[in-house]
């Protein structure tokens, strides 16, 4: 939902980043306002995932220039946990398995650190269990997963549901979902999409990073951005995603070449 | 697979290199004294620094004790009952191959290493060492065009004394261990390779060691240097006749790589291993070590160890230069009464150094096969990584497989991962092969070959086929 005067949430300007000696992001510009849903598309290696990890503060990436502002604050100077606590959420493409660490305890600690940040009471074990049960329902996840170790032995779909569950618990302001749709069957995809729709509010924003149109059939984006070689090549509305689905990415090469020549 | 190799052929030849060449040899008296060390140096007309080096090592050796920690349990070696210098008579290095004693050329022909102009391999330069002396080196002139020096160490001492003085004993110090000290005192000959800055050596280099005399100790010394950006692949092969006494072989190999240089060192060791009852065979106590001095330099050891009565060898890498790489790929096969205690040491000193160890041990008969390795991460080895895999296969219920992987880390930002397994050939897999018409022995040999595949893939092409054949030969009669 686009409203011209709504609050500016995330503002990325001329962002350059590299991993080891390899430049990946080469000048990304992106502005996200409250109430908006953005889709970032592009082929493998175009820099989509890097963009999401840089926003979340992954230590493997070095920012070489540019800025990222979140609600006016300098996001890049914040630690990963500070970003999460202030409301930036990254749904991982490949959520890591953490043997031995109880999923329930992890969720509780994470939820409470967010709550403290926004001035809410910490939840004790019982209160938290009530909350988590309610949110579990939303992602249609089996409560048995709470007693297991974080993501350990979860199937691909279960891991993604666990990501959406975390999003539902942390109630972030900006959610970036990195290929949350990949590897999901159609039912799981609906669950994820419904979760995203329910959590999208007038004062929050969502960024969907995806390869495919099918998630966008469920969740209609306000903006579609196409990334290539570390930059946003083109921005349009939902029609652009449909066009991409039909024509593929071949035009990207021509457009990319043109852009370089210019 | 060597499917063109009929099973009958495998059965007929236990050790086909066991013949003795009847040639007049110049030997010195048995025993080791300071005089003997001087005599060896004198015979080789060595400069004074080398004589001093030998004497220093000899004096050190006298103070050292023969190690027993490997638990190999071999009879005491009488060091005064060994001849420390033997060479074919008229051993002045010949200007051309035509002048070399035809008997020697014939010997190497029989071993499958033709040296003469017409027959020699087109892409491999060979240094042939007979008893203690290098008798011929092929393609020297061609290599010289690229600035590559490939000659016997004796020749190098005369022609490039500066290089020898600069590098000899800098990777394996004269007092490193009992056998290295002994070698440093009495080493006879061996190969010397120098690849200058930026040169990618245009052909494979190879040394072929042949022990011929029964009571002579073998103490070759090999030194390979790759300067900045240089690279070379070196192969080493060895055989010996069948004697019912044990012959001591105590070689030292030193490798040095400077920035961005790489050395690949491959060995197919097939010294005589003794007969079925464990009589005779070579005691193979070898010190091999490479030092990656330069940044991003690389040393890769691959070895196929099938011979010797006792093998005791740990080709190692000292990873000093930042981002340098060490590799060790090994297949050790023991049969009858053979004992092999082999492995590697990867000493990570520099940051972001990487090492890989893949070791495959196969024990058959009453033999014993041990992997003994050390992976050490020093305090400065930030971001260093090691991966080791050591698998053993047992054939028959009297063979032993032991594994002793020492791991030591002093650097939290270093990663070490070690995996190992011991198993036997699965009956189901065997049955599957047999049900497709493959004979039992061949099926076993296929399985063994598959087990070793990761290592064989690291060998230069000519050697890989050779190694496969060798394995099949060694296993003959050990199954069923």
């Amino acid at each position: 939902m686009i409203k011209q005067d709504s609050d500016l949430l995330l503002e990325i300007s001329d962002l350059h980043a590299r991993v080891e000696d390899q430049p990946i992001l080469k000048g990304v510009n992106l502005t996200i306002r409250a109430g908006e849903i953005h889709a970032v598309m592009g082929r493998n290696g175009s820099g989509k995932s890097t963009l999401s990890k840089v926003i979340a503060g992954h230590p493997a990436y070095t920012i070489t220039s540019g800025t990222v502002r979140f609600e006016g604050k300098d996001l890049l100077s914040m630690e990963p946990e500070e970003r999460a606590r202030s409301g930036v959420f990254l749904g991982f493409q490949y959520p890591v398995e953490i043997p031995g660490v109880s999923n329930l305890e992890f969720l509780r600690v994470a939820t409470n650190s967010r709550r403290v940040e926004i001035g809410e009471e910490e939840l004790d074990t019982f209160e938290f269990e009530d909350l988590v049960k309610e949110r579990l329902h939303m992602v249609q996840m089996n409560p048995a997963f709470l007693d297991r170790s974080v993501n350990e032995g979860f199937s691909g779909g279960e891991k993604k549901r666990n990501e959406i569950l975390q999003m539902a618990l942390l109630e972030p302001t900006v959610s970036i979902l990195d290929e949350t749709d990949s590897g999901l069957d159609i039912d799981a995809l609906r669950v994820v999409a419904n979760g995203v729709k329910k959590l999208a509010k007038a004062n929050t924003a969502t960024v969907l990073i995806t390869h495919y149109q099918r998630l966008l059939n469920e969740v209609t984006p306000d903006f579609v951005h196409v990334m290539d070689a570390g930059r946003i090549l083109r921005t349009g509305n939902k029609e652009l995603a449909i066009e991409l689905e039909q024509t593929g990415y071949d035009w990207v090469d021509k457009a990319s070449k043109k852009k370089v020549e210019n | 697979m060597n499917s063109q190799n009929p099973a009958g052929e495998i059965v007929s030849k236990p050790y086909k290199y066991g013949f003795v060449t009847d040639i007049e040899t110049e030997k010195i008296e048995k025993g080791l004294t300071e005089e003997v060390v001087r005599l060896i140096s004198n015979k080789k007309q060595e400069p004074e620094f080398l004589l001093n080096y030998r004497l220093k090592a000899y004096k050190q050796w006298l103070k050292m004790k023969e190690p027993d920690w490997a638990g190999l349990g071999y009879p005491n070696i009488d060091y005064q009952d060994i001849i420390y210098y033997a060479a074919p008579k008229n051993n002045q290095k010949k200007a051309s191959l035509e002048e070399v004693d035809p008997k020697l050329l014939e010997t190497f022909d029989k071993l499958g290493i033709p040296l003469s102009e017409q027959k020699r391999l087109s892409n491999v330069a060979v240094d042939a060492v007979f008893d203690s002396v290098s008798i011929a080196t092929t393609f020297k002139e061609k290599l010289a065009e690229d600035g590559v020096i490939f000659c016997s160490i004796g020749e190098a001492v005369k022609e490039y004394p500066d290089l020898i003085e600069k590098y000899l004993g800098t990777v394996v110090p004269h007092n490193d261990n009992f056998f290295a000290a002994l070698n440093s005192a009495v080493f006879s000959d061996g190969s010397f390779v120098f690849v200058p800055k930026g040169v990618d050596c245009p052909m494979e280099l190879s040394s072929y060691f042949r022990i011929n005399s029964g009571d002579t100790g073998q103490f070759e010394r090999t030194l390979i240097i790759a300067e900045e950006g240089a690279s070379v692949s070196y192969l080493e092969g060895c055989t010996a006749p069948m004697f019912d006494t044990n012959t001591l072989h105590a070689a030292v190999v030193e490798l040095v790589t400077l920035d961005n240089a790489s050395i690949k060192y491959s060995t197919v060791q097939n010294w005589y291993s003794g007969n079925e009852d464990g009589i005779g065979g070579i005691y193979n106590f070898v010190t091999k070590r490479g030092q990656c001095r330069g940044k991003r330099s690389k040393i890769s050891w691959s070895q196929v160890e099938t011979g010797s009565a006792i093998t005791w060898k740990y080709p190692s890498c000292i990873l000093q230069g930042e981002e340098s790489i060490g590799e060790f790929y090994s297949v050790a096969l023991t049969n009858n009464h053979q004992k092999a205690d082999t492995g590697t040491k990867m000493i990570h000193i520099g940051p972001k150094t990487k090492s890989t160890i893949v070791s495959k041990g196969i024990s058959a008969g009453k033999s014993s096969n041990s992997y003994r390795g050390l992976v050490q991460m020093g305090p400065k080895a930030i971001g260093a990584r090691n991966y080791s895999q050591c698998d053993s296969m047992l054939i028959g219920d009297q063979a032993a497989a032991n594994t002793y992987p020492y791991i030591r880390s002093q650097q939290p930002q270093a990663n070490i991962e070690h995996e190992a397994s011991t198993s036997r050939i699965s009956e189901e897999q065997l049955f599957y092969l047999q049900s497709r018409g493959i004979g039992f022995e061949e099926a076993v040999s296929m399985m063994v070959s598959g087990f070793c595949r990761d290592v064989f893939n690291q060998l230069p092409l000519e050697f890989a086929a050779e190694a496969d054949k060798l394995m099949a030969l060694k296993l003959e009669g050990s199954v069923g």
Partner: protein
Amino acid sequence: MAIERQWLSSLPLPNGALEAVQRRGRELLRSSSMPQNSQEEWRVTDINQLNNLLALPLSYAINKPLNTNTNRWPNEPVNGLRIVLDPHESSINNLGLPKGISMLSALELEQNLGHTLEQCSCKGDWPVAINHASANQVLALKIQGRDLPPIELVIKSTPDSFNPTRVLLILEEKARIDLLQVILGENNSAESHIVEIHLGQEAEINHGFLALGDNQSRLLSHLAIEQEPRSHYSFTSIQHGWSLGRIEPHIVQVHGQAKTTLKGLQVSSDKQQLATHSYVRFNGPDGQLDQLQKAAAEGESHCIFNGAVDVPRIAQKTNAAQLSRNLLLSKRARIDTKPELKIIADDVTCTHGATVTQLQAEELFYLRSRGIGPNQATSLLFRGYCQDIIETLPVEANRWDCLNNLMSTLPNDV
């Protein structure tokens, strides 16, 4: 050498129930030498620490010993039996044992004491010899039947002294019991402890071994375990906080066909040196071993693991798996680990593995990306790392709060 002589001459004359054992132990020490780094099993040990240990007076020979701080002890278990082993006492009486658990008679003791050590070829080991030379009592129990109350065996050690203690357990055929042993180091104490356990056919024991030092204390413990066919020995050890700590579980499956489960966790900090030297031998076919040894070293500490597995020809169809997982948490800490497999039987499946790493950066980042601060994330991960060992301890162990104890040593700068 001189220190050991001095120690031997400082001991009271042999007497009591273990007089003969004391004589033999002292004889052995006189004729052998102190451990040296040149010996494989003492290769990386700080020998000075062993010397310090021998410099302490023998606890039962002190007239007025310092009091043991029992504040750290939780209340007695509600459904279990607590036995306190006090090296000051020269004999053990009136334990109020329930049906199924009884003290060995003098004759039974004579027949059984040392038998398992012999079976496990441990008699010549130095930690065994010094215990033999000095211990003056032994807790010897016979276990019959199942559905027995769990035993909590607390070793009461005396500060500033050398505490030798010894335990012998005979599990009759089909017996089953939970045993939690707790050894707490007391200010500058040294613990010398031997356990012998004989498991009859189909017997089962879940043996927890909680060894928590106070950074000033030392521990040398040796376990000899003899397993008859179809028995199951499950051992979980937690070792933490000893300036020198060493646990040596030696297990022999006398006719194979038994199951051995070994889980160990050692967490070292400061300048501590903690070691586990395990040895498992299969004297028959169809034996199983499942071993997981974890270690975490921080500060300037040093963790050592040596895990020997011996599979002789007779032990066909043995299935043994060993894994050593190590965390190196500080730049000045050290890890030494060495699996050691000796295999002669050909129809066996044996695997072993070892890793040395720090906490996984990706896991840490994942937790931080959910708003969890680095210290708490580290602590969660570390807890998770310890969890699978701790949860196999007998349940009574929870009362000793050992996880929190371990967590308290976590560095803040990881």
